[in-house]
């Protein structure tokens, strides 16, 4: 191949794009489907040679803030996270619109329509719109790569952070990507306006006006963006707006080209003139979005006026879930093509603990104590491999809401009088958002038992290092948990009786107890052994 082409997943294309566009730092907390951006940067020899920062942060908020600090110094930063991670980072994210950027910042939000590995399917474009920031939404791997370049350029031109929004499908799908010549990293250069990042009300009001004034310019950029394309068609009975990856599903159904005018829309705020043209020239507009009907809603408006808009709201497409070629086909009014249905004997195969996982032994002990000794025993769990105990054969988990919520929900339940109130949280999740909740418990000496399952890894997302490594006991002690009630156990079958005893004792103790079952994840252990053996 004469051209410099690599086979890359969407996530990898974004990371390679950032490296080639002169990024100086990657910041992230793992989360499907965004994880592979940081992992790619960590494994990249180029990134190592260029001395690019590429280490995990404690959570998405600390990642976003570190990226802002890098930008403050005039350098380019990329911060990546899954959609719910953006909620955690929402405070610095929204405020970064008001401070603006110095060096370019790209915030990558990886959404998960259909909730393949998530608690919800919120659409990050809406948060970027809320923060008044431009959005790039690639239709394919090549655009994902190219948008790193375009993103930094726009970010520095207007001194604003930009969002790069993808969905699971693109994140984890591979295709050929043609690389561009690499740009140099920016030199350290502090903000010209010394007050740019000082959001005191008087300053913030001024900066906010600048952000608002920029909106028209952002629209202008979208009008002429090479990623937004108006492709005319002879059949004006319908116009189609295809956002991001939805464009592919449209074209899949028209192998010889679409007969209707199409607006391929991959950069926002929405290009008003292009949309006006499509609306004027066609009888109705079908909007294809892989996510929430953000554009459809804004076209339709509150009053459902003269423009005929179809999409997820009107039922041409399902209101929720991921788009695919079949759903788009139906929305276009074409007949289904479908193979035979799966025979009835095909059983569901939900995910499960790995054989030999320490979480199994920990839950066996927890379940025995909580369900046999106490009628009201509830287990507030959190997010990680250990959430799988909500499924058979354990079915011992009563909640899983957002990272850190186990400890604080147990606290609230204890406040309400529930006894015993147990929380189960993983080591990585604890460092992400559990520590502050534990401090709340300590301050009030709440009657809770908190299990921190320490498997030396962020296992659910593929076994990344955990910030907790070797620090859990010291953290709990430092937050003020009584040393006598920080109990370390080794979750093995042979230690079952000992674990049961420890749990009983700590439930009976009226105050904050922390039990730390400590044994490494089988998967990360296996990988290490394999490496050592090679």
């Amino acid at each position: 191949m004469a051209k410099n082409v690599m086979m890359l997943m969407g996530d990898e294309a974004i990371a390679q794009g950032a490296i080639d566009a002169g990024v100086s730092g990657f910041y992230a907390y793992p989360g499907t489907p965004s994880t592979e951006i940081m992992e790619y940067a960590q494994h990249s020899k180029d990134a190592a040679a260029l001395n690019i920062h590429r280490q995990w942060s404690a959570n998405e908020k600390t990642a976003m803030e570190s990226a802002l600090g890098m930008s403050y110094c005039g350098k380019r930063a990329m911060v990546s996270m899954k959609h719910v991670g953006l909620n955690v980072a929402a405070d610095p994210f929204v405020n970064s619109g008001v401070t603006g950027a110095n060096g370019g910042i790209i915030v990558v939000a990886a959404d998960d329509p259909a909730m393949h590995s998530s608690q919800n399917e919120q659409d990050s474009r809406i948060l970027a719109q809320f923060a008044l920031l431009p959005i790039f939404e690639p239709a394919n791997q090549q655009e994902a790569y190219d948008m790193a370049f375009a993103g930094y350029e726009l970010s520095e031109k207007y001194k604003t952070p930009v969002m790069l929004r993808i969905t699971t499908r693109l994140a984890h799908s591979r295709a050929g990507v043609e690389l561009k010549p690499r740009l140099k990293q920016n030199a350290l250069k502090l903000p010209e306006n010394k007050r740019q990042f000082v959001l005191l009300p008087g300053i913030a009001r001024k900066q906010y006006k600048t952000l608002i004034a920029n909106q028209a310019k952002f629209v202008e950029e979208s009008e002429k963006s090479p990623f937004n394309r108006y492709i005319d068609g002879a059949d004006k009975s319908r116009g189609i707006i295809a956002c991001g990856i939805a464009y592919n599903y449209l074209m899949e159904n028209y192998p010889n080209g679409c007969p209707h005018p199409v607006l391929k829309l991959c950069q926002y705020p929405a290009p008003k003139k292009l949309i006006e043209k499509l609306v004027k020239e066609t009888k109705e507009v079908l909007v294809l979005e892989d996510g929430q009907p953000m554009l459809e809603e804004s076209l339709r408006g509150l009053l459902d006026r003269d423009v005929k808009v179809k999409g997820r709201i009107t039922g041409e497409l399902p209101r929720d879930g991921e788009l695919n070629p079949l759903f788009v086909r139906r929305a276009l009014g074409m007949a289904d093509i479908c193979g035979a249905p799966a025979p009835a004997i095909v059983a569901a195969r939900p995910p499960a603990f790995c054989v030999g996982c320490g979480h199994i032994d920990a839950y066996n002990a927890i379940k025995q104590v909580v369900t046999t000794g106490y009628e009201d025993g509830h287990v507030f769990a959190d997010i990680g491999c250990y959430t799988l105990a909500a499924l058979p054969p354990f079915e011992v988990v009563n909640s899983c809401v957002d990272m850190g919520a186990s400890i604080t929900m147990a606290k609230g339940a204890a406040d309400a009088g529930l006894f015993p109130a147990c929380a189960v949280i993983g080591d990585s999740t604890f460092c992400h958002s559990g520590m502050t909740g534990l401090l709340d418990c300590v301050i009030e000496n709440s009657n809770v038992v908190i299990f921190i399952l320490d498997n030396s890894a962020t296992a659910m997302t593929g076994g990344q290092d955990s910030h907790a490594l070797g620090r859990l006991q010291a953290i709990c002690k430092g937050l003020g948990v009584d040393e006598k009630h920080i109990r370390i156990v080794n979750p093995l079958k042979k230690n079952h009786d000992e674990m049961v005893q420890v749990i009983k004792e700590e439930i009976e103790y009226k105050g904050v107890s922390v039990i730390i079952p400590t044994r490494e994840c089988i998967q990360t252990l296996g990988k290490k052994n394999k490496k050592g053996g090679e």
Partner: protein
Amino acid sequence: MKSDIILSGVGGQGILSIAAVIGQAAVSAGLHMKQSEVHGMSQRGGDVQSHLRISDKEVFSDLVPHGGADMILSVEPMESLRYLPWLSKQGWIITNSQPFINIPNYPDQKAVIAEIEKQPKHIIINADELAKAAGNSRGMNMVMAGAASLFIDIPQEKMEGAIQFLFGRKGEEIVKSNIAAFRAGREFAQKKRG
């Protein structure tokens, strides 16, 4: 030429090594390729699939459309049936016969095989056994890749070149034994197809 393949199995069985071999061969043959994978929660012993699309024309969708797959290539028999809605009328099911039982309600094995045999075009292989016979007890995936290769319009040398390319780093021995497993699968499929 176009080859749309649904690869299926159970998280942890390593279907991605098959996707890597076929995908690499497609790229070296100068074809367009898109391949989507499942990462995340399902990898913990849940059902996983990969959509592999190869064509001499531009490939748009990362997903194989329903009713559009030329092949379901499965390393587990029940999993091959899960994706029937994606299989085209002329499509092949090529599956390993050895079940991966990690759920209490796994159906009767004979009934599973009977369902597969109802499909007009199918090849059922005991890939675990063939791999062992080829001297590569961990080569089940390469046996399946070999069987599939017969139905994909890419020269055999390109496929074997892809194995060399992907496993060369691990040493000549590994490459050789993977190629042996690959050939065993291909020969078996050849006999079955007639």
